[in-house]
């Protein structure tokens, strides 16, 4: 059963934690454990349909978190979930980008950058693989993918 009466500070804290512990993409297993199993804020059916909705929405896939927040606590819940999940991590990222810019004059930075970049390339390739597992299930899917790739490279 869902409990629509969850308070927004509780939702804010829970979703902040879920944002901060997701590394390299959303930690869906942990989201399920906390929201469905531990808090009973949403059902596993809401978890699945919210995730699917997130995929077709413009913008980041994990807008599903806003859906879960709404299910848990109405409009205030949706606002708290969105702010909690995206706010602190975006702040951290901005801080990291500014710190990196501050380090540009440091001698060791080029070697650190050279050590980090292959990681980014590999993660991007792995993302392509994960997407292809979930999407290309038949010929139509492969044709759509090939057509879009052709159009983008031709542009």
């Amino acid at each position, binding site marked *: 059963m869902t409990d629509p009466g969850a308070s927004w500070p509780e939702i804010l804290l829970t979703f902040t934690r879920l*944002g901060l512990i997701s*590394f390299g*993409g959303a930690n869906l297993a942990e989201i399920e454990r906390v929201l469905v199993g531990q808090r009973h804020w949403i059902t596993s*059916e809401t978890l*699945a*349909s919210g995730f*699917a*909705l997130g*995929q*077709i*929405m*413009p*913008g*980041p*896939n994990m807008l599903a978190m*806003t*859906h879960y927040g709404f*299910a848990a606590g109405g409009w205030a819940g*949706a606002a708290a979930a*969105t702010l909690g999940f*995206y706010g602190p*991590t*975006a*702040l*951290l*990222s*901005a801080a*990291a*980008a*500014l710190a*990196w*810019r*501050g380090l*540009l004059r440091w*001698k060791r930075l080029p070697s*650190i950058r*050279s*050590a*980090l*970049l*292959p*990681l*980014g*390339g*590999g*993660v*991007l*390739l*792995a*993302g*392509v*693989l994960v*997407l*292809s597992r979930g*999407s*290309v299930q038949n010929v*139509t*899917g492969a044709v*759509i993918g090939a057509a879009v*790739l052709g159009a983008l490279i031709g542009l």
Partner: protein
Amino acid sequence: MSAPAPPPAPHLPSPVAVTHTDLLRVFAGVAMAGIGGGLPAHMRRAALERAWMTELDFAESFTLAQLTPGPNAVNLAAMIGARLRGWTGALATVVGVLTPGLIAMLGMTVVTLGLPGGLPAPLQSGLRGAACAALAVMLTAALPVLRVVGDLRGGWVLALATFAGIGLLRLNLLPVVAVVVGAGLILHRPGPQERP
């Protein structure tokens, strides 16, 4: 409002031309283009075609966005915004990239929450088509980043090791980061002539 003056550096784009309104507008457009996925690729296209960033800048920001916790696409938006216009630039890109989806998601949530049997079938099949298109979009970002990586000593090997670890073996990101970055640091340690 604006960030403190950045130190002169060889590959920084000049941040003068970019306004907060530009960032807000362009990143809302990126979100609209990224229906179904592939957001990083759309951000790359938007930033590069306006000469806001170089290919190397993007590869660097993308990699750093993997290393900070949280949803990667939003992290990347924050990093690009911060890079171009400091803290308020990050606010503009994050708000821009989230707003279209938030409006759409709240609308759909109010309509579909509590529908028996989950989402309607046409919606689910439309979703699959969008995901196939997103795959192609992701490839257009992966290939140029890999070209940057290929120029580095050991770059291909380490990128493929990362791909195998995360994509094929489904390992946790953190141990893969430790091994790949550790190996990279050894490969790229400053030689004797570079030491002060």
